[in-house]
């Protein structure tokens, strides 16, 4: 896999089927799917529980806005990911181009996915710091790899935004 910048867009080329599939899973991975821990992480409390009125107002007025914001980001990413569609049986490497104007949506969707995966798997801080664990072994190992891979993409996009 290679990542480069081309006319301000980000181009991810030489994507093998495995990594392409991990990218395709971003929108699905970003969804809490009713999992309370994931839901709670994406929509965390704005104050301690004693502030009942504030928390109730937040749930009524702010949370729907946040849901729309997060949904909008994953929709943008879903559209971009259509570039990876094609013959699913083909083992040919793929290329994905992320327009510069979609960088924030990608950061948001990647972050949602990482947070949701971490919450669903209840990863410890030390597990999250293990960037070199093989994804081959268990579903949990693969999930950790997914978090690290998405984090790697975030780092690149952030570096790109900072340049």
């Amino acid at each position, binding site marked *: *896999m290679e990542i480069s910048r081309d006319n301000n867009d980000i181009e991810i080329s030489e994507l*093998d089927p*495995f990594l392409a599939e991990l990218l395709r899973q971003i929108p699905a991975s970003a969804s809490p799917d009713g999992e309370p821990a994931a839901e709670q992480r994406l929509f965390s409390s704005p104050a301690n529980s004693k502030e*009942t009125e504030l928390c109730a107002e937040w749930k009524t007025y702010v949370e729907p806005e*946040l849901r729309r914001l997060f949904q909008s980001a994953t929709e943008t990413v879903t559209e971009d990911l259509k570039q990876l569609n094609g013959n699913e049986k083909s083992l040919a490497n793929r290329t994905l181009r992320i327009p510069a104007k979609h960088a924030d949506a990608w950061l*948001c969707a990647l972050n949602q996915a990482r947070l949701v995966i971490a919450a669903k798997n209840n990863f410890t801080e030390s597990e*999250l710091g293990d960037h070199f664990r*093989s994804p081959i072994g268990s579903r949990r190992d693969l999930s950790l790899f997914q978090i690290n891979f998405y*984090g790697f993409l975030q780092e690149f996009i952030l570096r790109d935004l900072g*340049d």
Partner: protein
Amino acid sequence: MSAMIDSLFEVRASYVSVSAMSREPRLEVECRAQSKETEGTTQVLDEAGSVTTADPTTETHSEEDLDLPWQVVVHNDPVNLMSYVTMVFQRVFGYPREKAERHMLEVHHKGRSVLWAGMREPAELYVQQLHGYLLLATLEKLS
């Protein structure tokens, strides 16, 4: 399978490389949000905190209650990248990179950092923006 393993090694190598590069100083990113925080605000926080007399357990919002100083606190989160958190502080509060990094490191090492303090309404807006970036942020009434 071998192609998969090859690709994994490539990704790992790239990860190390990009992580290392991310520690280098970067140019400032444009601050799109309002920049209301100044060094002076922190002084206001201290003065206001010392004269607060309202009962902090009250749950109604009188005029005086809304005028009490509130602080915007960001809590540690092992998933969010340090570079991402720094960028968010720069964007939301308009902090220069060095100051944003100081707060990020305070969150990382001490578990929390007070990013801003002042009136409740702007404090709420800041927390809303921080939640939009998926940071763990809360409003705390200064007592």
